[in-house]
């Protein structure tokens, strides 16, 4: 079948897309970075984090869930959008327990890396200090809901790739939280395993593999050496089991 290419324009650059691609898909394929936290190539996009907000004319849309359409003129890397993205990042920080010096994920954390990328120097908004439940029941996997940013990457990874359906988001607004699909609601009683994509895809330190903490010293970790723009452009599509 012949693939029909059309084009969109992002910050003045003409970018081809194929039917069915989102703005994010087309941008990543052309190695144009649109900041994102809840998007991962190969998983169904969900538009949760809104970091990928771009402007089409006067309309703001999430690039990860908006289909590319011929002739769209899109603003992406502008100071106004990056300021808005910084505010979103600050809100994600104050809503959860993001004390970087105390977190094993520091240096490998995408939320932190997004803060670096956007030049976030402080958190601006008052902290929520919500006490959310830690689930340390599993022998190999820790779940600290205090750090969860509700991106639902683990939810999608478990359903679409691991074929296990271990996680879901329950509740609304500030009551939204990650739940575990097991008889007790505990990870230990679920069928998650350390090799599952769901156990490894968390962008922050909410889901951590136990017994491997601090193997790489702080200062030599991913975002001590690379920007999230560099890693975001290199992420390969995850292979779903039924692909």
């Amino acid at each position, binding site marked *: 079948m012949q693939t029909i290419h059309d084009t969109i324009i992002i910050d003045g650059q003409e970018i081809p897309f194929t039917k069915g691609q989102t703005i994010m898909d087309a941008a990543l394929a052309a190695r144009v970075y649109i900041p994102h936290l809840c998007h991962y190539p190969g998983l169904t996009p969900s538009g949760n984090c809104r970091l990928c907000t771009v402007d089409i004319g006067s309309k703001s849309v999430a690039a990860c869930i908006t289909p590319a359409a011929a002739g769209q003129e899109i603003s992406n890397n502008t100071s106004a959008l990056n300021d808005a993205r910084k505010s979103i990042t600050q809100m994600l920080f104050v809503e959860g327990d*993001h004390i*970087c010096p105390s977190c094993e994920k520091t240096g490998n954390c995408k939320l932190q890396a997004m803060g*670096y990328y956007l030049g976030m120097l*402080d958190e601006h908004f008052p*902290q929520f200090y919500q*006490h959310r439940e830690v689930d340390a029941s599993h022998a190999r996997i820790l779940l600290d809901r205090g750090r969860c940013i509700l991106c639902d990457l683990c939810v999608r990874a478990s359903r679409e790739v691991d074929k296990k359906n271990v996680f879901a988001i329950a509740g609304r607004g500030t009551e939204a939280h990650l739940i575990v699909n097991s008889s007790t609601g505990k990870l230990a009683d679920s069928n998650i395993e350390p090799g599952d994509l769901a156990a490894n895809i968390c962008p922050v330190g909410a889901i951590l593999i136990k017994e491997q903490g601090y193997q790489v010293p702080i200062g030599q970790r991913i975002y001590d050496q690379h920007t999230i723009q560099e890693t975001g452009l290199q992420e390969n599509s995850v292979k779903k089991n039924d692909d």
Partner: protein
Amino acid sequence: MTKPRIKIATTSLAGCFGCHMSFLDMDERLVTLFERVEFNCSPFTDIKQCEPCDIGLIEGGVCNAENVQVLRTFRANCTTLIAVGACAINGGVPAMRNYFDLQDCLREVYLTGTGVTNPQIPNDIELPLLLDKVYPVSGVVPIDYYLPGCPPSADEFLQMLEPLLTGKKPLLQKLHLHYD
């Protein structure tokens, strides 16, 4: 005539003094810095009362009544006030107590915790009263600049101070940005 030196005051509120130690990591560069600056109220000088200064460096968050008083004195006396390090900026590790009730923390640490002998919650009149939460310094006074890091490196301190010494606005390079 020699130019008057820029006056800097520093303090550590609810912090670990790690930021102060990191400042001293400037090593021999301190010698050239001291040609242009002098320390006023600071753990470096042991001067206790803050006089009018050009720059104030605040390490640590705000966890008790004394921290509030010191911070307000610094704000009143320093033309430019800089929040230094994770604890000053968002409360840092001391703010991890904010996820729990303060009475529960005191009870666990001083009464019921493992290895506690002679259990009693300290209540000497000399002790500053604890606040309900550990607050970022920006929650108590307006802050002019932020220097993240746990701690910020000596290079980052210099990157912040150098422009200020010549009346320019400091801009921390993204490359140097880190929260740990």
